[in-house]
């Protein structure tokens, strides 16, 4: 053991040779990330248009204090945020369209056998469409219809008319 220690001392202290700085060419990586961001933004834009007029989606992808040149790490985070937002919204849209399909089937069933779906009301929003139209199973002739089991589907005529055009811009 002492020899080992002595050997270190015996070595004449030579000036430390500096490790040459390694220059990493990030350009290829950056270019690839910029391309991925463009592709994800395109898919997100397409998904945005597909979801319309449904509400309740979160499209926010946090900004990075721009406009500036982002570092490689920041570009990766933008890419990851876009990818996770895209995956999340695709998942939510998948769930929504499943429920909407079920509601469409329900409308068909209501039309065929209204007496089995008493008071059920399905709106355009429930099937992922815009407008105020709704299908409502109601008794014909009020209380008499309820007693006699005369049920039917009433389809609303849509949204109320707008109040007017207002002042021209």
């Amino acid at each position, binding site marked *: 053991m002492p020899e080992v220690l002595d050997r270190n001392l015996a070595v004449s202290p030579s000036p430390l040779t500096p490790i040459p700085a390694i220059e990493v060419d990030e*350009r290829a990586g*950056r270019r690839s990330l*910029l391309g991925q*961001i*463009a592709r994800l*933004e*395109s898919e997100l*834009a*397409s998904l*945005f*248009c597909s979801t*319309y007029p449904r509400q309740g989606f979160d*499209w*926010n*992808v*946090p*900004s*990075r*204090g*721009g*406009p*500036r*040149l*982002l570092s490689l790490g*920041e*570009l990766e985070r*933008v890419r990851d945020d*876009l990818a996770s937002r895209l995956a999340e919204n695709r998942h939510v849209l998948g769930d929504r369209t499943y429920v909407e399909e079920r509601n469409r089937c329900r409308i068909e069933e209501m039309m065929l056998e209204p007496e089995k779906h008493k008071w059920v009301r399905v709106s355009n929003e429930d099937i992922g469409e815009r407008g105020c139209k709704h299908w409502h199973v109601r008794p014909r002739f009020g209380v008499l219809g309820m007693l006699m089991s005369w049920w039917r589907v009433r389809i609303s005529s849509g949204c109320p008319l707008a109040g007017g055009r*207002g002042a*021209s*811009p």
Partner: protein
Amino acid sequence: MTLDLELERGWIDRDLGEEFPELALRVVTVEAAPGRSPRAVKHRLRILSDRYTGGKAVNLRQEPIPWAYRVFFRQIGIDPDDRRTPAEEAALQRMKLGGFRSANVLDDALTIATVETGVAVMALDADRVEGPIGLRLSRAGERLGGGADGRTMSAQQIVIADAARALAVLFGDVADETGVNPPTKRMLLVAVQVKGVPEVSVEEALWTVAEVLASTTPPHPRA
């Protein structure tokens, strides 16, 4: 009226040019003063409003040029749903207000150009700009406009600058002293071209702004 415009190309800082090889600045100087919009321009805005439907506004981000700006916003660290691209901002105002509201001839001209082409155009006071303009990164502690009362920008922001100072943050604030003001006699129209925006659209945007401004300027201005 025949317009004789000479479109110039702004310089791009080396770092920016390497990162975004297709980023470009197209510049043109026009003799025009700000003021109220003539009836013809207001009429043009109304026609544009009628052509602009909700469906078009929703699908805007899928159109090539607005999409190209959205992508560029993401790539430079801006959330385009937070700070909207010029075309989307115009669409949002159209939907909110029920039409494109006339403000003044310059703003109206910029709105018309942005809505028709999707290209981002801005205007500066040409007489307050020194030398050719271009895009560069801001320096540490640099003030917008160069004056003592300009706000201090964070370092490495992308700015539109002339030989002396930063004139505006890209897609952001314009320095008070270099923006278009009532005494302005000549305007510098600046269009930012990003990857995916064709040259012809940029030129069309600048021509549109110049043409609208020319419609209010007498052909032989008084000395």
